[in-house]
């Protein structure tokens, strides 16, 4: 049966987790590997490291972070941020990442998606799309550069093209909702999940446990991503999973989390 993944996301700057609110205001929240291991133990189904470091040296730091994660993390790991070539992606995969997400570079040169899918396999190619609502016939438009730059591009059209080019998964962030705690943009999530044949991760806006249930039931997302509510310990992953299971959504029990089976 279909099951939904709960995915904590860590914005990483120079090897440290930053808590981003509305893509800007950044506060240090610790070592990404420590935090990822904590989320694994608490029942996360997957984790995302998003490298928001601007410098080239920072990129090398990210490879080291992924290598350290490979020693201690035994759930899927997606890494993104600043990936511009097949070689960038390879470095992260060989370091221990399972999937690599691309965003701006894929918009600048969509062939990158095709090349990555051909050389690395679609299953490890995630295309991340940052989206804002706009007025007019096109309801959602694509943004780049961490949400600072608007493209005149229909988000649904880009989602479909990304999948045609070989994306194995889409990570769709509502920038209107990100950091607001007002819930996922359900209409956006549903529109994308219905438009493509690959799994979709919804991101941006989680404020409470009920938002996850709505994202799964109304949004029909395959993955539900959140950051701040987990980093600030406002929501426990086990509670999210209990609520999802109670609502009839397929979900891996949080009791199977971590690296050893106790009274399971």
């Amino acid at each position, binding site marked *: *049966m*279909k*099951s*939904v*993944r709960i995915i904590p996301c860590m914005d990483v700057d120079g090897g440290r987790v930053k808590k981003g609110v509305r893509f800007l205001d950044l506060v240090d929240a610790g070592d990404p590997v420590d935090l990822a291991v904590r989320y*694994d133990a608490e029942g996360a*189904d997957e984790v995302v490291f998003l490298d928001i470091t601007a410098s080239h040296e920072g990129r090398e730091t990210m490879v080291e972070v992924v*290598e350290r994660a*490979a*020693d201690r993390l*035994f*759930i*899927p790991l997606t890494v993104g941020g600043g990936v511009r070539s097949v070689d960038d992606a390879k470095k992260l*995969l*060989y*370091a*221990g*990442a*399972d999937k690599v997400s691309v965003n701006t570079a894929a918009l600048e040169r969509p062939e990158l998606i095709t090349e990555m899918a051909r*050389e*690395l*396999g*679609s*299953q*490890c190619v995630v295309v991340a799309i940052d989206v804002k609502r706009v007025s007019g016939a096109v309801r959602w438009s694509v943004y780049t550069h961490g949400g600072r730059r608007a493209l005149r591009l229909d988000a649904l059209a880009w989602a479909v093209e990304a999948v045609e080019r070989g994306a*194995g*998964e889409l990570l769709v962030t509502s920038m209107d909702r990100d950091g607001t705690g007002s819930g996922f943009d359900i209409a956006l999530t549903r529109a994308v999940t219905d438009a493509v*044949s*690959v*799994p979709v991760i919804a991101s941006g806006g989680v404020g409470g446990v009920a938002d996850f249930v709505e994202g799964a039931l109304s949004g029909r997302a*395959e993955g539900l991503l959140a950051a701040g509510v987990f980093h600030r310990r406002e929501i426990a992953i086990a509670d999210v999973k209990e609520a999802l299971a109670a609502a009839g959504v397929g979900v*891996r*029990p949080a009791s*199977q*989390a*971590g*690296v*050893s*089976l106790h009274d*399971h």
Partner: protein
Amino acid sequence: MIAVVDYGIGNLRSAEKALVRVGADARLVADPEELGEAAAVVLPGVGAFGMCARELRSRGFARFVVEAIESGKPFLGICIGFHLLYGRSEEDDTAKGLGLLGGTVRRLSGSVKLPHMQWNRLDRTRGREAAMLSGIHGDSWVYFVHSYAPVPDPVMQGVVATCDYGGPVVAGVEVGNVWATQFHPEKSGAVGLSILTRFVERCGEVAAGRVMRSEGL
């Protein structure tokens, strides 16, 4: 030493690290001849069947993997490493697998999203012993990433577990010394590490002569 076949495709480090985590003397092996010295062989696999099949051959591993399996050494194939045990896959007609098991790798069907990229519950095959799952709770979830899966011939040959995704999907196979999983035990948290622990224990038992080394396929 447990050799994890390093044939230059994607994330192989995770399989090695997970085996080390459960106490194995495991390492990535890029020189095919080293498989001869290994006590056991793990063939991971990510990406596409054709690419993996070609890399396995062009790097000279195919013959040594077959030799290791035929000699009765404990063997674990993961995902595409599982698919490679069969002769062919619908994913790539031009590529040849090792053809050690009967059957074909087919595209998943049903009204489901592909890739099947999620955790799913293992359904054990009734009346069949599953050494890889011994001591593991019935309601166990593991992580899958694939769009194709083997359809064994004879039907259900060696199948010890399936999962439900638009219909039954073969999740685990045991045939003699060969264990294989469609899911990724190295990415399946506590359940996955338990399965790898069973494999490492089996390697120890074979090495100590407590379990008869099987004839191989």
